[in-house]
């Protein structure tokens, strides 16, 4: 029983982090067609924000709760600056934004190395997350549960914003038909900017969760960025539920494959499965249907 439940529970925690990272990616990719390869570095920025908050506050019990909004704003501001100075100038060249953001990611990673050192920095988890809960004989640490709760909260907040606020309606209108939204008086430029802020901020929140599990280090984002992109690709764009299903599927599947074969073999197989899956659903799980040719 243990070999069956352990990967399920650890995989769910991995999937939760992937979900937070992929939500931001799917948002910006879906709306603007922009692939932000620096998204992993925003995750890293969020993790360092958690580390610094803890240095300032000291009390681990409180600092993590303060770190969440701090990380959201720090990563969000980075995203906002990126959009303002670089991406807004190249919306007609989606593939090129991918390369530019690769460059930005390299710079951010090196900057983190220069400021904080190449070695990792620990982030101690709060006392109220120390215990574990027994599930089918497996002691599931509260931290894993916390990650999942955090991901679901982020998902719920994002879904609520998209569904019920007027800003959310503007985002959805821009995703579905940019020109028509513009005609209706929506400033798509402003919507793009805010979407980038929110999407990047979500990465920061994900970074806090990662920091609790593995501490912070400059190359932290690189481990998550490719799986997060695979989640976006498999989940499809335009609807959150595809991202949710794909994130937990990739997270849990990776853990099962790791326990059956090895960590590296799991990566190979997950990649192969995503390519095979695209044969069945080239647009991903769910997508906004249009009569467009592309």
């Amino acid at each position, binding site marked *: 029983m243990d070999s069956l439940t352990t990967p399920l529970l650890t995989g769910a925690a991995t999937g939760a982090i992937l979900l937070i990272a992929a939500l931001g990616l799917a948002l910006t*990719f879906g709306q603007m*067609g922009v*692939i932000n390869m620096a998204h992993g570095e925003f995750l890293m920025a969020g993790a360092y924000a958690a580390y610094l908050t803890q240095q300032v506050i000291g009390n681990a019990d409180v600092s993590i709760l303060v770190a969440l909004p701090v990380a959201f704003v720090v990563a969000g501001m980075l995203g906002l600056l990126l959009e303002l100075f*670089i991406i807004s*100038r*190249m919306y*007609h*060249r*989606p*593939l*090129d934004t*991918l*390369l*530019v953001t*690769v*460059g*930005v*990611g*390299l*710079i951010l*990673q*090196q900057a983190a*190395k*220069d400021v904080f050192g190449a070695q990792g920095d620990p982030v101690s988890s709060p006392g109220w997350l120390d215990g574990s809960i027994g599930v089918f004989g497996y002691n599931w640490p509260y931290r894993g549960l916390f990650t999942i709760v955090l991901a679901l909260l982020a998902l719920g907040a994002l879904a609520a914003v998209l569904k019920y606020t007027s800003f959310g309606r503007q985002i959805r209108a821009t995703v*579905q*038909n940019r020109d*028509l939204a513009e005609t209706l008086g929506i400033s798509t430029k402003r919507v793009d900017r805010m979407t980038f802020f929110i999407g990047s901020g979500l990465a920061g929140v994900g970074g806090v969760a990662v920091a609790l599990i593995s501490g912070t280090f400059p190359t932290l984002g*690189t481990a998550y960025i*490719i799986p997060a*992109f*695979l989640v976006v*690709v498999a989940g499809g764009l335009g609807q959150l539920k595809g991202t949710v299903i794909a994130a937990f599927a990739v997270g849990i599947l990776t853990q099962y494959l790791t326990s059956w074969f*090895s*960590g*590296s*073999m799991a*990566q*190979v197989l997950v*990649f192969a499965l*995503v*390519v*095979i899956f*695209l*044969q069945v659903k*080239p647009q991903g799980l769910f997508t906004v249907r*249009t*009569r*467009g*040719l*592309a």
Partner: protein
Amino acid sequence: MSTSTSAASRIKPWLPLLGIALLALALLVIAPAMLSPFRLNNLGKYCCWAIVAVGIGLAWGRGGMLVMGQGVFFGIGGYAMAMHLKLEAAGPGQVPDFMQLYGDGSMPWWWEPFRSPVITIAAIILVPALVAGLLGFAIFKRRVKGAYFAILTQALAVVFATLLIATIKQTGGFNGLNNFPSFFGYSLYDPVNKKMVYLIAAGLLIVCLVIVWQINRSRFGELLVATRDAEERVRFLGHDPANIKLIAFVIAAVMASVGGAMFAPIAGIISPSDVDAAASILFIAGVALGGRAGLFGPALGALAVGYGQSTLSERFPNEWTYFQGALFVVVILLIPGGLSSVLKRFRKDVARQTTELRGLTVTEPPTEVKVHG
């Protein structure tokens, strides 16, 4: 039209050949005469990267496919060659040294064919063609979009490097394969043979340039550019864009593999860090710098980045990373046509320049009108 302009227009298609000849002269005659063996060997490394870049220029610059995982094919060629050289060094019936060091001294079955030089060379061409063909077929036939393709190729590079690091007993793991005393029977300790290996690599670069020059002139080359600029129109004209892209992707993969195969004996090592996602991105940096859509831009850009990489990265590793990041931002943002487009701006009139740039920058065809409702 005066006779002089018509004569000029008749010469014009052959100008690239003149450029190739000049490059051949520089690489094959002048460089070996002027440079010390050490520097010549370094130039050989840059030539290997330039071979990869020529392929990327075809797939990305001409075909609009951002290939972010060329390190995989570079690695396939490099490891195939390295395996042969290791087996050659071990002698008939023997097992490479590192397998006794890390493992129990038994050799995996798939190493055995690489004892034969013929099979090794065939594998350097065929294996990347097969891998690129399968992946490209799966992606292009289902019309998976450009960005997805780029992500999937990069994911492939990540997976490939992880797999190599994990299989220390079979591939040398993190350290890779190194220490090759001979190259198809010729001792690599002899400077004359070392120079010969350089000349082969530089010669292959010239060959690849000639191939891409001919492809660019052919009907296929025109179809490839047409697919890049307006895929749907090409489809409506009765061509299958998937096949066109597939062919360009396979050619680029084989070129990357050839570059890798020559890299192993010249550098004396092939390891996961030569083929991982970061290395794959560095390949693109050279192409972007030189100018992706031209014939010479990718090769010259790769030579320049290669030079920068090996001279600056050792002395100023941190600054080099910043520079590399800034290179991507500045070049792609401000001069998407690369340095060759800047040079062209001095020569050509502005009107022509803008039409060329337009072809480069608009990746979504303007004809795709989305109809809702």
